[in-house]
């Protein structure tokens, strides 16, 4: 209602000629501040009572008074509970078993809570599937305390009450009932029996409810191929520990391929046991974790991979397939085929090619082999997205067929390749409600943003794999005025049950089959029969529907069976006819740290260095060296040690992503490039977190393989890359490597020699007491902690890095500081490339240097060794404080802030440290971290330690360090001490494995690469690991006698 009414505050305003009114409008202070009056008048200034001397006296007095007053300690309050909950004892941690199922990561975990606050995620060792938490799951606890979380429901940008939202939804639902318009639910993959049942019930009540499952990064091809073959939209499961030969075509199964979680079964087969270990051959374009761990890695563009796969199938099948491959690749394929034939059912083939033909062929190969590792009978449900349904929904939205849209767990306005279409469609939807924990691109355009619970505040259940269930229980009450999607659905459907009761009902009637609910909740996992939502549906109509479905299934099965037998041939021909478009072949992938980008506001994950490139706070396009030279792209280090790189503009099908920084990636297949998802988010994020570029617009047709053209753009990008030295330069004493053949046939002194040093011009073993200038102590009494790191089992996944972050209150320093190598990670995973094609060749080359210059001269030779080769071997090495028994850092500390404990730990007393940094300079392993700044309560470092909410994640047993203090890995002394104390209190010796499961990194290591324990404990695992032939110490010739030892990496190079 516009009116011409004039409002006035003062009568004077009515007079248009009043000058005062005008002045008042313009200036807040009408009069000028009389600075001149008391400073300009010199006479006045000199004649005043307070002269300069007096002024200084006053200043001096007040400073002295203030500093004297500061000597008084602050008054601290202690506020006990009014009624203390029975199971909470202040100072004692409680653990709850729960599950994460955010649509991308599915895992069964234990949550450590202190005084009711979840502070750490640990592995649930009772879980048969999904028991290993990856880096993102480990970091997910910090997202609970994200200060940018939605704190209550929002309607059109204004905070509202839930009652208002509920009323709007209920009236809309009532209006839409039996109308022609759809009620659409666009959600993440839940794999949740109770949610399935709930949505089925909703569909029974409203016939027009459509449930569309959407995965930001889908497995469309694999799902379709599996469905065509086995009649169920699911993913085959693999147990790599049962396999002697693993052949992968672009499947990063140690990363996030088909939901990930395969590293523990893979690592089991990779540790040489009685002379045997599995062999792993990887054909891939991008350098992935799996490729880095492979015994043989063949860089191929996706197109070539398809042909190679077709040829492999043909070879195994005794037929032939067309297509052209380079000679060496052809040879490799032939060799792999022979190996597969030998291994027969002990071989397994997997592929990550986003192509239904490739997936079909792989399923056929595994079935043909009768592969033991391949399991189609008990498939995984962790990806259920349906791209076609999503596209239909968007079309329906745009044509006005959708009356109400509910979104949960996904951010389509950010992650859809056709996000713009979605946004315009959303405007035509009568009611749009978006459930989200954070403000994001989708909540921004929706009518209602419903603040959703974090999974640690929610009830839920999940069926990760057929018959393998997990329960999700809240570990803290909702921090804000939030409500989870399922609870809201129940409310809107007028149910008087809460979601907990609903789940309990589902479980007791449909899953537990008589087993105890409380035990299932306590364990967090339950193994039982398959669940079907319709079984529980009392509605006879639905049962009838279900019966109809059942009738259909065998019919379609027949068709599919027939179709699949035909389709193999057509699939093969389709694969062999694969052609790349113009330009380069782009493979889009999820980065280990960021996944699909749903946790972009998590500073731990932003700061987590990528295992391969060691770059944090960024995504980038990975380019092979040859292509980079062709396009004029470069990477170089600048004076302060930072890595700089060129920019490119990437065009796919007319869609351009501008200014993508370039990383030249050794091992990248020539003609291919890679770009990771999950970055480039802008809405609802703090400025520091708005990193990288968004790759989703290039994810066209939900296919991760695209034909792209790269064009160099101007400018240089500053990376925060924390490892600048990429190769070992022949220093085989850092990472020792051997082949399985040598390992089996030769003495350990050949492939794991103990270094010699010169004593009186005599070569003497470094372990002999004469060369030692230190006095040795008797270390056989009491606990003596040691850590074993098996380079064969370590896949470089980085779960330990985040677990260490969480346990030890390690600060986040931000991109700028990371670039200056001021990262604070107590535990880093070094990644080394070989300069020649193997590390062995590096060593030989180095040994053969002769003189300074010349052909074999060390001057040029070292330069060459610095360059990683085109297809290098890769090795990962976790390095933390080595807790040297003869520690160089301890002797140089002028204030004795670092000293040695009898239990083998190198202690660091922060309150004693004065920050000379001598210790860091004297440390041969470079594991000490200096607090250059105050990283908490400092607006310059506006991460979780700068707000009260984020500080709730801190471990109360570990000090938060201040500026000017050195810190480093403590072997989790707070945890080992707690174990000892528990044993003392209970009057018993420390139990087996107790230390291993207490220390953050070894407890987080699901692949078993890091083991921790007391070597003085009789029959302990760590003692036998130390005696192992493969054990060696890092830089042993320095004579530091570390308490961390590594196990020589063994590669299975046996071709047959």
């Amino acid at each position, binding site marked *: 209602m516009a009116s011409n009414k004039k409002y006035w505050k003062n009568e004077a305003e009515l007079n248009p000629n009043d000058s005062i009114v005008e002045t008042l409008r313009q200036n807040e202070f009408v009069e000028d501040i009389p600075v001149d009056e008391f400073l300009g008048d010199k006479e006045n200034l000199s004649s005043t009572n307070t002269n300069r001397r007096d002024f200084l006296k006053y200043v001096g007095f007040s400073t002295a008074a203030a500093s004297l007053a500061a000597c008084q300690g602050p008054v601290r309050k202690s506020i006990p*509970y009014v*009624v203390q909950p029975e199971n909470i004892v202040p100072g004692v941690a409680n653990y709850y078993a729960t599950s994460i199922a955010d649509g991308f990561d599915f895992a069964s975990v234990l949550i450590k809570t202190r005084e009711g606050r979840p502070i750490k995620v640990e592995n649930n060792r009772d879980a048969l599937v999904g028991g290993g938490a990856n880096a993102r799951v480990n970091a997910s606890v910090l997202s609970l305390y994200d200060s940018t979380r939605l704190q209550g429901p929002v309607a059109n940008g204004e905070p509202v009450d839930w009652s208002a939202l509920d009323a709007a939804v209920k009236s809309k639902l009532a209006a839409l009932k039996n109308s022609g318009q759809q009620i659409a639910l666009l959600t993440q993959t839940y794999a949740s029996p109770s949610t399935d049942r709930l949505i089925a019930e909703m569909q029974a009540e409203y016939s027009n409810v459509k449930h569309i499952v959407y995965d930001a990064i889908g497995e469309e091809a694999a799902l379709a191929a599996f469905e065509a073959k086995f009649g169920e939209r699911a993913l085959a499961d693999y147990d790599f520990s049962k396999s002697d030969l693993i052949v992968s075509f672009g499947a990063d199964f140690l990363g996030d391929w088909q939901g990930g979680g395969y590293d523990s079964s893979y690592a089991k087969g990779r540790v040489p046991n009685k002379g045997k270990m599995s062999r792993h051959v990887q054909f891939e374009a991008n350098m992935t974790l799996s490729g880095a761990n492979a015994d043989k890695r063949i860089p191929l563009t996706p197109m070539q991979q398809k042909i190679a796969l077709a040829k492999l199938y043909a070879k195994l099948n005794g037929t032939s397939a067309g297509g052209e491959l380079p000679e060496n690749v052809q040879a490799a394929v032939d060799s792999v085929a022979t190996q597969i034939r030998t291994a027969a059912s002990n071989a397994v083939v997997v592929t990550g090619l986003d192509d239904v033909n490739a997936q079909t062929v792989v399923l056929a190969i595994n079935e043909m082999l009768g592969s033991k590792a391949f399991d189609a009978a008990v498939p995984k449900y962790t990806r259920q997205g349906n791209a076609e349904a999503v596209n239909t929904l968007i079309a329906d939205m745009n044509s006005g067929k959708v009356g109400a849209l509910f979104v949960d767990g996904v951010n389509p306005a950010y992650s859809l390749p056709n996000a713009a279409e979605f946004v315009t469609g959303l405007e035509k939807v009568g009611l749009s409600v978006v459930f989200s924990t954070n403000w994001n691109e989708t909540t921004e355009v929706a009518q209602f943003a419903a603040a959703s619970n974090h999974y640690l505040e929610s009830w839920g259940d999940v069926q990760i794999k057929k018959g393998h269930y997990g329960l999700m229980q809240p570990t803290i009450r909702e921090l804000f005025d939030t409500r989870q999607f399922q609870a809201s659905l129940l409310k809107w459907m007028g149910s008087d049950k809460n979601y907990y009761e609903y789940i309990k009902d589902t479980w007791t009637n449909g899953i537990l089959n008589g087993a105890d609910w409380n035990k299932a909740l306590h364990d967090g996992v339950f193994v039982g029969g398959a669940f079907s939502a319709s079984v529980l549906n009392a509605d006879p109509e639905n049962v009838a529907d279900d019966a109809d479905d059942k009738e259909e299934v065998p019919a379609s099965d027949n068709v599919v069976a027939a179709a699949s037998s035909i389709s193999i041939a057509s699939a093969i021909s389709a694969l062999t006819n694969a052609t790349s478009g113009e330009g380069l072949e782009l493979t889009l992938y999820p980065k280990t740290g960021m996944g699909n980008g749903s946790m972009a506001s998590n500073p731990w994950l932003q700061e987590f260095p990528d295992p391969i490139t060691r770059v944090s706070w960024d995504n980038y396009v990975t380019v092979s060296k040859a292509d980079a030279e062709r396009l004029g792209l470069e990477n170089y280090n600048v004076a302060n040690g930072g890595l700089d790189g060129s920019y490119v503009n990437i065009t796919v099908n007319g869609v351009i992503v501008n200014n993508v920084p370039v990383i030249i990636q050794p091992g990248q297949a020539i003609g291919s490039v890679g770009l990771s998802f999950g970055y480039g988010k802008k809405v609802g994020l703090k400025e520091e977190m708005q990193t990288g570029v968004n790759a989703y617009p290039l994810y066209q047709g939900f296919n991760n393989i695209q034909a792209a053209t790269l064009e160099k753009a101007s400018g240089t990008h500053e990376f925060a890359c924390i490892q600048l030295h990429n190769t070992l330069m022949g220093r085989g004493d850092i990472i020792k490597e051997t082949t399985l053949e040598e390992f089996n046939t030769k003495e350990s002194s050949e492939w794991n020699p103990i270094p010699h040093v010169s004593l009186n011009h005599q070569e003497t073993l470094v372990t002999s007491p004469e060369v030692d200038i230190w006095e040795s102590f008797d270390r056989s009494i009491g606990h003596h902690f040691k850590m074993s790191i098996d380079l064969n089992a370590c896949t470089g996944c980085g779960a330990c890095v985040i677990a260490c972050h969480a346990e030890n209150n390690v600060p986040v320093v931000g991109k700028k500081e990371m670039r200056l190598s001021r990262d604070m990670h107590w535990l880093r995973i070094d990644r080394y490339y070989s300069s020649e094609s193997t590390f062995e060749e590096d060593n030989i080359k180095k040994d053969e240097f002769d003189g300074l210059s010349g052909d074999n001269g060390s001057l040029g030779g070292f330069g060459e060794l610095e360059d990683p080769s085109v297809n290098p071997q890769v090795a990962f090495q976790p390095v933390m404080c080595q807790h040297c028994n003869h520690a160089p850092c301890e002797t140089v500390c002028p204030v004795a802030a670092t*000293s040695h404990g009898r239990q083998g730990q190198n202690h*660091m007393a922060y309150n004693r440290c004065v920050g000379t940094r001598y210790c860091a300079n004297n440390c041969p392993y470079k594991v000490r971290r200096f607090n250059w700044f105050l990283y908490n309560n400092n607006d310059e470092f506006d991460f979780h330690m700068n707000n009260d909410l984020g500080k709730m994640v801190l471990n109360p*047993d570990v000090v938060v360090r201040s500026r000017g203090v050195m810190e480093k890995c403590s072997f989790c002394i707070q945890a080992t001490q707690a174990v000892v104390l528990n044993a*003392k209190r209970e*009057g018993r010796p420390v139990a087996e494995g107790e230390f291993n499961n207490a220390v953050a990194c070894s407890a987080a290591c699901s692949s078993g690469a890091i083991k921790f324990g007391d070597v003085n404990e009789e029959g302990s695992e760590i003692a036998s690991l130390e005696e192992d032939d493969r054990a060696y110490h890092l830089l042993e010739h320095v004579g530091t006698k570390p308490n961390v030892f590594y196990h020589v990496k063994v590669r299975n190079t046996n071709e047959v």
Partner: protein
Amino acid sequence: MKKVPYLHPFSKILGVTVLFFLLISTSIYAQDEASAEASPEQTEAAAETDGDPAAGKTLFNQNCAACHALDRKMTGPALANVEARLAEDEGLDREWLYSWIKNSPGMIASGDAYANKIYNEYNQAAMTAFPTLSNTDIDNILAYTAAPPKKPAVAATSEAAPGAAGGSGSGVSNNVILGALALVFALLVVMLVLVNRTLKRIAEANGVVFVEEEAVKRKPLWKAFVDNQFLVLVSVIVLLLGSAYFAYGWMMQVGIDQGYEPIQPIHYSHRIHAGENKIECKYCHSSARVSKHSGIPSLNVCMNCHKSIYQVSEETLAEGKQEYGVDYNQEIKKLYAAVGWDEENQRYTGNTKPVEWVRIHNLPDFVYFNHSQHVTVAGVQCQECHGPIEEMEIVSQHSPLTMGWCINCHRETNVKIEGNEYYEKIHDELSKKYGVEKLTAAQMGGLECGKCHY
């Protein structure tokens, strides 16, 4: 106030007059409410004939006091004149009471109207059956509820009075003694002056001449001091050393709050609870057994006892007021307010106000201390660090809580290994190594930095 003895005859007279008026007025009231007075008189009479109130009191305290008081509701109803009340209001006789006390659940089950009424009124908290009480016992109890034996208030008064009088008396006598002493000294001074003058006069009379000493020009003392460089040097050194000593002493106490005794939001007396009532420390500070924190008890722990203990005894109350200027009953009221306890209806309102205690023992953040290690494993008594808590009305920090203090104890204290399997192996080995029978905490590694700082 009434306990103060009337010393002045006038006030005595006044008191007697007031008493007289009071007597008259009560009799007037008595006449007005003659009918009302009738029943208590009856019960009194009955009590005197039927039971022994003194024996009844003992029985009451043994069996009933946990849930009943005479004049206020607790878990169960107030019991003063219960028999008369029942007879009057409900028409129930003593037989009913016998059966109720001996088997209350049975009566509720049998459907007795009043039994069910009272059961429902008191939150369906069933009264324990007392089949062991004989009718005589019940008679005695009822006699007590009808006419509780006179409290030894008189005794208290008489006890308190001499105390008070003695207190003030000793105050006066001290002053008197001091005054007298001052007087004596003054007299002595005067006498000395007088004697001196007299002697002088005698001397003058005897012709002794006092020669005034000539003021010889001598070097002033300060100048002599300044000239003597050695002396200056020595005294400067002494001065510097002295000030350094005091400065050091002052600086070493910065951050040490030994004797810190803050005022707490509720005046909680450890002297009464731990001292007089001998409540085990770990009853309230239970987490000291298992946790790093000793734990300030949550208020529900207080209510375990204070649900029944709503006031302190008169002696305690008087003592609190006199010695510490605090009304303990008011402090209990504060607890009720904080925990949301409705005294009137004997239920929780849910309206809570958590108590903000002032923390007394503050270790710096960079040190890790675990109570359970010391309390449960080592068996250290709380008092060893916290001092005689059971004598403290207001808790103060007893120990300095400095690192030196920790270390000293670790050096001197033997590890308690008896019956603890954890120590078996390590103790054998270590005691052989050090050649001692008993190991100190220091020998176990209790002096290492990382054991407390991480």
